[in-house]
């Protein structure tokens, strides 16, 4: 892999000088301990893939009505790809659910329909707009973020379809509350997560039994980092929505974030819409997902960009995590993804 090699050679990561015995200032006494051990015959991507497939098969086998949550973002694209690999040459033995906020990037909806069809899965769409129309949630207004409202729509869909397990693409490196969550995360009959009462989860013994009305969230990508996701996308040639790659579009700068101008986002007050070359690092509700300035038009470019970024994925792109120190924990307690 050319990119990998050149990155390795040009990098100045602080630990780069820790070659066996090569750290300056080390007495000889410690040198003997610094011999590189022989690694596993499989590389880290192979191991991450294999464990994710193991988890998907285990949950599919132990639950009655599983479902895969699909947002059209890169993590759910990887998850759908892994689900397909887990059951080849058969089809994915569960449906795919998209919780649609109604604030979508057009590219993402087109992509969603094409991907789900390509994998031969059945798509269920649950709309936040329906929850608003039914009076299940208050309408926050046409331009406000509907991110938090998704929880009600999601839990209603889980109840309506009697789903007892929902696969999600969440990763532990995304957020400090996610970092605490088990691979199989138990939800009570109100859909709530109790971080103080998580089940012990030892070895690879994923224990997925639930009682009627309760359900599990299963996170097969728990141990993947943003970099692992991109490396895997490169290796498996996974197609993503075009907005992940650099393109020029009108944006406004708000709260230090670049928001795409759309039917929901228009310049307010002193704000001016400007054409900027950007890409999206995550894909969510269009009213609160920020773009980042970027010229990365290929996966290799993005891998290079991710390896030198000083800002975390959610820090760069999610307005909804900025409300308070524990936004994600609070939303997860309510039943969020």
């Amino acid at each position, binding site marked *: *892999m050319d990119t990998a090699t050149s990155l390795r050679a040009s990098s100045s990561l602080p630990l780069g000088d*820790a070659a066996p015995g090569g750290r300056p200032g080390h007495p000889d006494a410690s040198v003997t301990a610094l011999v590189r051990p022989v*690694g596993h015959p499989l590389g880290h991507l192979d191991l991450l893939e294999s*464990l994710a497939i193991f988890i998907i098969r285990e949950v599919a086998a132990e639950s009655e009505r599983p479902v895969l949550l699909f947002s059209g973002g890169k993590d759910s694209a990887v998850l759908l790809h892994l689900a397909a690999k887990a059951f*080849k040459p058969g089809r994915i033995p569960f449906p795919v659910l998209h919780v649609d906020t109604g604030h979508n990037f057009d590219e993402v909806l087109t992509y969603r329909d094409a991907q789900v069809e390509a994998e031969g899965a059945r798509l269920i769409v649950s709309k936040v707009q329906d929850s608003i129309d039914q009076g299940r949630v208050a309408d926050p207004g046409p331009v406000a973020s509907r991110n938090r409202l998704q929880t009600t729509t999601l839990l209603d869909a889980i109840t309506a379809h009697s789903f007892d397990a929902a696969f999600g693409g969440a990763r532990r490196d995304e957020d400090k509350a996610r*970092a*605490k969550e088990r691979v199989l995360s138990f939800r009570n009959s109100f859909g709530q997560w109790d971080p103080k009462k998580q089940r012990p989860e030892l070895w690879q013994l994923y224990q997925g039994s639930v009682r009627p009305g309760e359900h599990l969230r299963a996170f097969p990508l728990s141990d993947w980092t943003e970099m692992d996701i991109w490396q895997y996308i490169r290796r498996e040639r996974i197609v993503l929505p075009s907005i992940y790659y650099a393109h020029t579009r009108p944006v406004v700068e708000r709260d230090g974030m670049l928001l795409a101008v759309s039917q929901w986002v228009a310049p307010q007050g002193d704000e001016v819409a400007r054409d900027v070359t950007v890409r999206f690092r995550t894909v969510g509700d269009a009213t609160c997902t920020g773009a980042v300035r970027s010229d990365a038009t290929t996966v290799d470019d993005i891998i290079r960009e991710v390896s030198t970024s*000083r800002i975390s994925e959610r820090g760069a792109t999610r307005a909804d995590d900025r409300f308070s120190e524990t936004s994600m924990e609070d939303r997860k307690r309510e039943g969020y993804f």
Partner: protein
Amino acid sequence: MRDISRTMTKLPSPPPSGGQELGADTMDLLRFATIGSVDDGKSTLIGRLLFDTRQLFDDQLDALSTASERRGLDEVDLSFVTDGLRAEREQGITIDVAYRYAATPHRKFVIADCPGHVQYTRNMATGASTADLALVLVDATSGLREQTRRHVCIAALLGVDQLVVCANKMDLVDWDKSAYQGIVDEMETLARRLGLVSCTVIPISALNGDNVVERSDAAPWYDGPTVLDSLESAEAGGWASQHGPSRGSGARLPVQWVLRQPGGGRAYAGMVNGGPFRTGDAVVILPQGLATTVRAIETADGPLSRAEVGLSVSMRLADDIDVSRGDLIAAVEDPPEVTDTFDATVCWFHDRPLVAGDRLRLKHTTRVTPAVVESIEGIFDVNELAVSAASSLRENDIGIVRLRTALPLALDSYQADRITGSFVLIDELTIATVAAGMVGRPSLHC
């Protein structure tokens, strides 16, 4: 409130790196867990390690600074890097395991920062059950506590055989060599009796970063490795890790799912453990005891002639025999023992004591079966490192029990194979996981 860069006095100006790893598709992976008693500094050490190796992003550092300030702290509290829950920050303790990820050009790390409090031993066991190495924190001002010994015992029973011990808070004892030496003596005795492979003791201050990533000149009498040196040179992918090879069991594939082939026929999906499978291998289906051979090994990317340990595959067999989820395909040489009655070492996590006659569900590999406790054979004393008689096991006790299951199980001893030698017990009423079990009795070198 001091500025974070001044608090972190040892920090040179940050290079333009988010601390993510480089673009290579194959790197080796070391999983380690922090263990030890509450308040001995586990979370602070992980915060320090991540900070000094520049694995933290600017927005995460800003958030740490703000969170510390809001709690009226004078300095940035590095434990907030992993203590992410509201209740944890409130109380300044760790309740559940936090997983963090780090990478150097040498390897990737999965870090399980475990709670020290006795009440959360089940969470510590969760974090340690997949670790290659345990990073043990000992407070140099107070020495080894019972809880530290309990954690080291649990880690050793789980098969974590590499210890890196941090004699922490050395700054509070003026870097007194005798305080360090006392911990070395106690830990080495403990490690020897538990049969551990390696035990390195490092004098550190997690708060100030001495001997964590950078060598400290505060202890000129110490010439061993730093914490990071030890982590970079430890054996990865060892026996106890998630995908490690077995110690003496042959190839095994617990069947997870039966895949029907388009042209008829079936393939049995699961993850390989114990040793590699090759096409043409003679195998036995357990518990039935039927012999056949491996006709093909398949993955979504195509067929394989050899499947390594840790790989998820599907397998086709030469003979058309009845195989379903929960069955085990094993190499015909040295197969596991099929039995419905066996002794096991268990860590009990329920607040109701475990007694003879208790009925539970047991999950072993991909099979779930009712089980009954025939007898409590004894309790493991973490101070004496000996088994004594007991009639019940209380929460967080480690004991030896005799179990009988409704379905026969294909078992290896945990010492031989951590996949086919491990199980969990499930409460029938709450269906919560209430015990971690290891087939066989603890092996001690007393």
